[in-house]
């Protein structure tokens, strides 16, 4: 009995040590595919993740400083893709399944100051000095830069209405 205990303990210790050494000396650096991760990001540099632009977020993700769910505009789809690509754990419940939001101009408050369209990274806002501005819905990504700079609060983000073409069957709730 004693022999059994001793031999198993010794084996356990030896293997444990071996695994520890292997983890240290054979450690694989996550390949710096920064460009690839950056390509997966939306590319609008909206800053909602808290990092300097999408490139900054890509760097942080690779370094392990950012969770896979750091990009709100990317939503669950992007989070899952990042988690799969980088092998990060994903807490899917942390991602609010928010409906995508796009900007809308309240024409009665707009003063035509052009601050919003200068700040839009995709040129989704149309307008000129002293002209009421409008938003091209297909180009808007909901990054909220325009909302921040508008002096009168005329441009705001609102949820995209669901149409017959975009409606999806909800997942059945299970017991």
């Amino acid at each position, binding site marked *: 009995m004693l022999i059994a205990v001793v031999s198993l303990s010794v084996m356990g210790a030896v293997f444990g040590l071996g695994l520890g050494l292997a983890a240290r000396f054979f450690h694989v650096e996550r390949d710096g595919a920064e460009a690839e991760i950056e390509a997966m990001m939306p590319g609008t540099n909206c800053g909602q993740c808290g990092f300097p632009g999408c490139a900054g977020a890509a760097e942080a993700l690779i370094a392990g400083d950012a969770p896979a769910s750091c990009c709100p505009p990317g939503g669950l789809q992007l989070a899952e893709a990042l988690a799969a690509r980088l092998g990060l754990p994903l807490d899917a419940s942390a991602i609010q399944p928010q409906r995508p939001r796009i900007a809308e101009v309240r024409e009665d408050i707009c003063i035509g100051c052009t601050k919003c369209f200068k700040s839009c990274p995709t040129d989704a806002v149309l307008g000129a000095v002293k002209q009421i501005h409008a938003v091209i819905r297909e*180009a808007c990504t909901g990054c909220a830069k325009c909302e921040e700079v508008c002096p009168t609060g005329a441009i705001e983000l609102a949820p995209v209405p669901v149409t017959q073409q975009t409606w999806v069957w909800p997942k059945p709730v299970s*017991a």
Partner: protein
Amino acid sequence: MNTPAPLPTHSFLRRLLQRWGAHPEARKHPAADTDVTVLPLPPRLILPLAQHIGAPARPLVQAGQYVLRGELIAEAQGAISAPLHAPTSGTIIGIADVPVPHASGLAGPAILLETDGRDEALPAEHADPFSLEPAEIARRVAAAGVVGMGGATFPSAVKLALGQKNPIPTLILNGGECEPYLSCDDRLMRERAPEVIDGARIILRAIGGERALIGVESNKPQAIAALRAAADGIADVDIVEVPSRYPMGSEKQLISWLTGREIPAEGRSADIGVMVQNVGTAAAIHRAIRFGEPLTRRIITVAGGAIRTPRNLEVRIGTPLSTLVAFCGGTTEPVARWVMGGPMMGLSIHSLDIPVIKGSGGLLGLVEHELAALPEPGPCIRCAACVGACPIGLMPLEMAALIKNGDLKASVEIGLKDCISCGTCSFVCPSQIPLVQYFNHAKGELAAQGRNRMKQDAIKELVDARESRMEREAREKAEAAERRKAERARAKAAAAAKASAAVQTNEETTA
């Protein structure tokens, strides 16, 4: 691909071993036993612009305009679309968003027509289809707004046009009607068999086909007899009895049963030399070509435990469902669920203001015991009844488990995209798990993700375009500033030169 597919009698064993499908109670009586009754004109018709697969029709009329029966009121938009015609004479009230048959329950745009009861028709052109060119037949079918009337509502002319490029040897008319309760096709075949046969021959001409097979389920012996009598002496049309099984009326299953061939998963029926049309569509094509009558009416079954007098009615497209129910004597007990279509694939609706559209085959007022619904779905016990039932050979229990855990990609890998959403798996599940809802959800999610991806790509291009524009502007600004600086320097130098020249001349004169 020019030889017609032979009927495989040698595959009797294969048919014996193919045990996919389910056998729901047919419940076709008493609706199937009475003649089709024409519903009197309602006071108002609601005509949704999107009654077909493809782009919605574009309205051509305005409020206050008077239209005749058969007049074009909305035109097709794009290659995959269909026009809309006034089902009766009357005044256009306007175009508004109204409840329409769609799973989302969202409203859709529709033309509202107030009928005047006179039912005056636009003069229509009669024609002999066998004197028309195939392309002309397709064009007239398109102009008549004929779409698949078995429920799929695919614009028929687009299908016929496939036959212009390569002749399709075999036409199959789908007289299966495998859904319980529904008997509109059954009555059509019994009472108007010559229309169906003539429609078959017209379609054959349009697609360059050599032979037509009309598949009818064995629970419709009178329909088979009527069709055989009408096809007597016509060489290229054969009536074939198929077993009563759900979903025998599915295009893939019917073709496989009748010809032994399978539609390739990533292909169409035309790839194997077959085209399928519903018998109702064939009858509509017959009327469109022979009498120039656009698609403005259809037969619909009103049935279900709650309906006092279940029967088949011929109604104008756009008739509100409430009119149909009232004509059938109303309801005898509280309705647990209203369903448009059959119970297996039909749409659950919450309002009877919804109109009959081109693809509406049935309206069911179901009571509790017909739904046989458990209060809550139970856990999957892995009985694999769904695997045995699936006509496509998928594994619904696996796909649903993957989708439940959010792994859509894995569910696609085991065949989600091949699912035809027939509902047989959910029907046979002992725990009543809503399997087909999982699959419809997943398909919708994947489509949304695809749209998202396209948007992301477009966004990237916009961002790049903007950045290069900013750079260009900055560059031009810098160049302009440089030029101005150089200008100023030159002007300064010129002025200095001039000043020194003037001083020199001054000095010369004073010296």
